[in-house]
């Protein structure tokens, strides 16, 4: 795979591609050993600022540092313009799709999406049926995972409409780069990302519920607490937005609203940016044993007393079987051809596709339809015969639980290694904000990089690292 991968910095003849022109000129003028020294500085910086995450199932490494690579991933202004159009189209379609799923289900009636994908799907919440969230927004924050295979070939690998995480790394990566290489940012004009928290706060405030009266909606971040793998991000975003960070025990229903405990007593919350999963949100509606949520918040929600971001039930669009229908979904709701294609996907629920997948497991990537984070998947080319045989049995036992995709030759960007710059595979997760005022895409996003030579797995839980992602200013 590696030998044919698209190198984002270097053309096959060894010349530097235009996106990296300014960066390479700067780099080549630096004294030898700079990146090495800076790499050590970066790690110290990260430890100091405390960006860590927990890996589930890794007892020896409760808090792990996500490795940061100091070579930026660079996208030109014109590439970004095209990507932005595609992302905006996709996010518009996702919101229209979610509204439809919880209302008339026209797409099912029209025969464009099989009802079986919703039937028995735990991510489809009947509790949302017939209700339109404030401003008609379901996915206030979306992360669209993109992979690249050529100069103009970007594809969507996954939609993250439930609770996309990682934005704090995007922000900290930029801050780290600016602290380490201040003069670099005077040489190359890079579009800003640091105003993301302000844009997030503004976007959330624009989604205030009907019950909001007053000048400025109150926004709070609801976290499951310090043992959650993304707790750092919850605290960081609340702090950066100037919003309260709350847990379920800090909230209660009072006066027809959801109120939070403050030093001035209980105050109503208008918009809650929750990082608690649907099932734990309201013990009266979902998991009755949950202490992470608020009893009655769904009642207040349906009565127009609070905005929940993202809306409960949006996770249905993250389902990988539904993902495989995204080209149809985009066309159905926008009337346009999708600007960003999907990665070709076989639905193992279909007999022909299953037969093909079983015959070609060694070449394919197979994923669980409800999976995320790189767990429970098979990467054929790097798996042993034994692993493939074991996975094949699981696949035969429950075909509808899986989709398969070709092993893509993901593009590479150099990372800094002891031996100098070396290409590694990357993906990109742009962060998208949705409000009645529009769709706001932060330029760039989070670049995840597989640090191991030849590896295609970029997930931080599976040993991936991150890079600062640049969109060049015209």
């Amino acid at each position, binding site marked *: 795979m590696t030998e044919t991968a698209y190198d984002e910095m270097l053309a096959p003849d060894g010349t530097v591609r235009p996106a990296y022109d300014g960066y390479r000129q700067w780099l080549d003028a630096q004294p030898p050993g700079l990146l090495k020294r800076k790499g050590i500085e970066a790690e110290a910086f990260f430890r100091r600022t405390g960006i860590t995450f927990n890996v589930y199932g890794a007892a020896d490494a409760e808090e792990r540092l996500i490795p940061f690579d100091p070579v930026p991933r660079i996208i030109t202004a014109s590439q970004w313009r095209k990507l932005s159009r595609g992302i905006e189209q996709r996010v518009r379609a996702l919101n229209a799709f979610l509204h439809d799923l919880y209302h008339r289900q026209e797409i099912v009636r029209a025969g464009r999406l099989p009802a079986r994908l919703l039937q028995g799907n735990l991510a489809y919440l009947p509790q949302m049926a017939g209700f339109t969230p404030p401003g008609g927004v379901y996915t206030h924050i979306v992360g669209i995972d993109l992979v690249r295979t050529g100069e103009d070939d970007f594809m969507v690998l996954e939609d993250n409409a439930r609770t996309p995480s990682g934005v704090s790394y995007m922000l900290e990566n930029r801050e780290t780069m600016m602290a380490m290489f201040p003069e670099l940012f005077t040489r190359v004009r890079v579009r800003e990302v640091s105003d993301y928290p302000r844009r997030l706060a503004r976007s959330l405030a624009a989604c205030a519920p009907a019950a909001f009266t007053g000048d400025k909606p109150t926004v709070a971040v609801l976290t499951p607490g310090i043992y959650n793998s993304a707790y750092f991000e919850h605290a960081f975003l609340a702090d950066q937005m100037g919003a309260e960070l709350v847990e379920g025990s800090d909230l209660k229903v*009072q006066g027809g609203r959801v109120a939070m405990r403050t030093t001035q007593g209980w105050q109503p919350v208008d918009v809650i940016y929750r990082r608690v999963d649907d099932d734990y949100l309201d013990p009266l509606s979902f998991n009755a044993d949950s202490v992470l949520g608020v009893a*009655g918040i769904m009642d207040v929600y349906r009565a127009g007393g609070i905005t929940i971001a993202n809306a409960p039930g949006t996770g249905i669009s993250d389902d990988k079987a539904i993902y495989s229908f995204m080209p149809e979904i985009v066309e159905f709701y926008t009337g346009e051809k999708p600007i960003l294609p999907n990665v070709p996907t076989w639905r193992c629920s279909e007999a022909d596709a299953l037969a093909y997948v079983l015959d070609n497991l060694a070449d394919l990537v197979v994923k669980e339809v409800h999976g995320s984070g790189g767990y429970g998947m098979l990467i054929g080319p790097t798996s042993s015969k034994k692993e493939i045989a074991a996975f094949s049995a699981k696949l035969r036992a429950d075909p509808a639980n899986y989709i398969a995709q070709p092993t893509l030759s993901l593009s590479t960007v150099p990372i800094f290694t002891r031996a100098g710059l070396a290409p590694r595979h990357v993906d990109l997760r742009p962060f998208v904000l949705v409000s009645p005022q529009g769709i706001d895409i932060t330029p760039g996003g989070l670049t995840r990089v597989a640090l191991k030579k030849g590896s295609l797995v970029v997930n931080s839980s599976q040993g991936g690292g991150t890079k600062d992602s640049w969109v060049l200013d015209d």
Partner: protein
Amino acid sequence: MRLAIEHATTYRFSGPIRQGQQRLRLTPVSSAGQSVIAWDIACEGAQIEVGYDDEYTNRVTLVGLTPGTPAVTIRAHGVVETRDESGVTGRHAGYLPLWHFSRDTALTARGTKVAALVGGLENGAARDPLATLHTLTERVRAAVVYAQGHTDVATTAEAALTAGRGVCQDQAHVFIAGARALGIPARYVSGYMLIDGREQQDAGHGWAEGFVDGLGWIGFDVANAICPDDRYVRVACGRDYRDAAPVKSMTYVLPAPTGSAPVGDTLVTTLVVQRLTPA
């Protein structure tokens, strides 16, 4: 028929309430067989927080319990004009597709007992679903004999079939599981019923509805072996009792003083359903 209903529920808690909510589905709405003339919910020891229509278009009221209160009383009362529609509630409304009512829930999960109950009805269900649902009513009535004290609100359809006894709620759950096993969408209905010669009742009533193409939703009251008529008032519906439950609570009680005898929560229900005669 004009019915006056007075339904009071009093919960006494094991100690003073620290915090608590009750989600009430205690408000009937006007539909094919009924017009709500007047209705009100009054609370003691609690206040109304919000009201809204849920995913089944049931009217829901959330009340917050007053901190420190040892008890709460919810009084739902009003007048409903009913018509005999031979059990037909009408076409499917709301935004949940019919398939939603064909899927198992925890209380109505189908096992071997349900499969045995509907054995031999498969062909009839496809040919004449209405007649099949009547047959199913008879079978359920024989398989789960009406008797109090053998089941509770958490009893599943399979468990009720094993026990062979149960109340209206169990019979409805078995009917629903059986109908779904036959490919007929079914749902649970909670409500009230006028009982001749007995104004004072212990509890509200529950029955089932099955969906038949061309007719829509049709009620089947297994306990009384009839389709609901103008003695019935529909209040709420859902896939099973849990969706339609008149009261769902989440309460946190302050710890009892040390040395005091432990007491559990108690619940007292009074229900009066009367026929109003035109003056």
